[in-house]
């Protein structure tokens, strides 16, 4: 399975460089084909922004808009997440009161594993995110869970992403548990559905609307959305998690709010990260 997927992946890249267009696979369990969706999404952007290499999409809007890129390159001379990263490493390595630590909760001591998140958890029948498991690790060891959107949780997550830089996302949808495909489909539907008083979908702004101004803002491509999180965003003036961003963009549609780590957001992350399979982890990141 793993083997086939990887060889398919490289075929995908090769075919696309000849500008073939993969078909999008629809919204029913019978038709949906995550890998076809992924290739179709890549094809969409390659046609929309010819000449931008796929691996650049980990850089969001800066992959496709030269003016923003120039400002960003200047910003990145002193990456604004450096302190958070240092603190994250220290937090990660500080034992809990019971002597255990984060390293004891994760595969490979928590190092170099970001590319496997989020994943389908068969026992719990739900999508698990890295942030969720960081907090579960704390609770299991008698510590208080951390707030989801910023602060220490984002810093620990940033450090874990940093140790995984350059690793290729390999989100799996186990074929022998149809609930996993359903979770992917729910995430996909969420992304494409119009919602809220403003009747906007994520796709409205991040596909057709990408690199087109909404007032002074330029929405970036959805391909690669999760790769660099958590992110230090100038507008926040601090580090924040992917679900903090989801919450904000979702609110911008004037919808009834959803909290970070809501079931809907975790499925959305599952869908979005699957779309980024083949791209590398480059978190933490910095954005305007």
């Amino acid at each position, binding site marked *: 399975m793993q083997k086939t997927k990887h060889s398919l992946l490289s075929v995908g890249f090769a075919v696309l460089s000849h500008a073939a267009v993969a078909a999008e696979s629809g919204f029913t369990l019978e038709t949906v084909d995550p890998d076809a969706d992924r290739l179709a999404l890549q094809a969409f952007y390659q046609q929309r922004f010819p000449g931008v290499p796929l691996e650049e999409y980990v850089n969001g809007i800066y992959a496709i808009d030269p003016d923003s890129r120039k400002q960003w390159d200047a910003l990145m001379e002193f990456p604004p997440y450096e302190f958070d990263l240092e603190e994250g490493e220290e937090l990660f390595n500080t034992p809990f009161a019971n002597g255990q630590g984060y390293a004891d909760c994760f595969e490979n001591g928590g190092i170099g594993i970001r590319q496997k998140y989020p994943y389908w958890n068969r026992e719990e029948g739900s999508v698990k995110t890295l942030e969720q498991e960081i907090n579960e690790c704390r609770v299991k060891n008698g510590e208080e869970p951390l707030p989801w959107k910023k602060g220490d949780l984002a810093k620990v997550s940033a450090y874990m992403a940093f140790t995984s830089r350059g690793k290729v996302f390999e989100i799996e949808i186990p074929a022998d548990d149809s609930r996993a495909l359903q979770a992917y489909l729910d995430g996909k539907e969420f992304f494409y559905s119009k919602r809220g008083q403003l*009747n906007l979908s994520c796709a409205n702004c991040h596909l057709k609307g990408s690199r087109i*101004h*909404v*007032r002074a803002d330029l929405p970036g491509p959805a391909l690669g959305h999760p790769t660099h999180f958590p992110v230090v965003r100038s507008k926040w003036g601090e580090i924040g998690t992917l679900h903090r961003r989801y919450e904000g963009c979702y609110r911008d549609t004037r919808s009834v709010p959803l909290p970070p780590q809501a079931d809907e957001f975790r499925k959305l992350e599952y869908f979005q990260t699957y779309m980024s399979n083949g791209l590398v982890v480059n978190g933490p990141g910095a954005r305007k």
Partner: protein
Amino acid sequence: MRKLTTVLSVATAALALSSSAVATPPQELIDEGRAIYHDKTRGNCISCHNIDDPVANLPGNQGPMMIAMKQRFPDKRLLRAQVWDATVANPLSIMPPVGKHWILSEDEIDAVVEYIYQY
């Protein structure tokens, strides 16, 4: 651009003269529409549509520029219908259904339509 506007405003003037029976909308209504159009918390039309008004600030370009409205919408009611619910013409439109979703009141929509109809 400047040229085009001049030509258009001449055309508009001619049009206005030829249909002098149509009452010109009161200035307060146009001013109200202008405020709605540019206010982030009200219509926020400027976030997607540029318009040749000196108060226009950081216009977006998701939608077409508001220009030659009388030529493009000789029937003002069709213009109002487009503003009221853009998804009738294009179900996937990124433009919010301003009337259908109660983003603006019916009076506010009238005002904003009068304002853009000047361009």
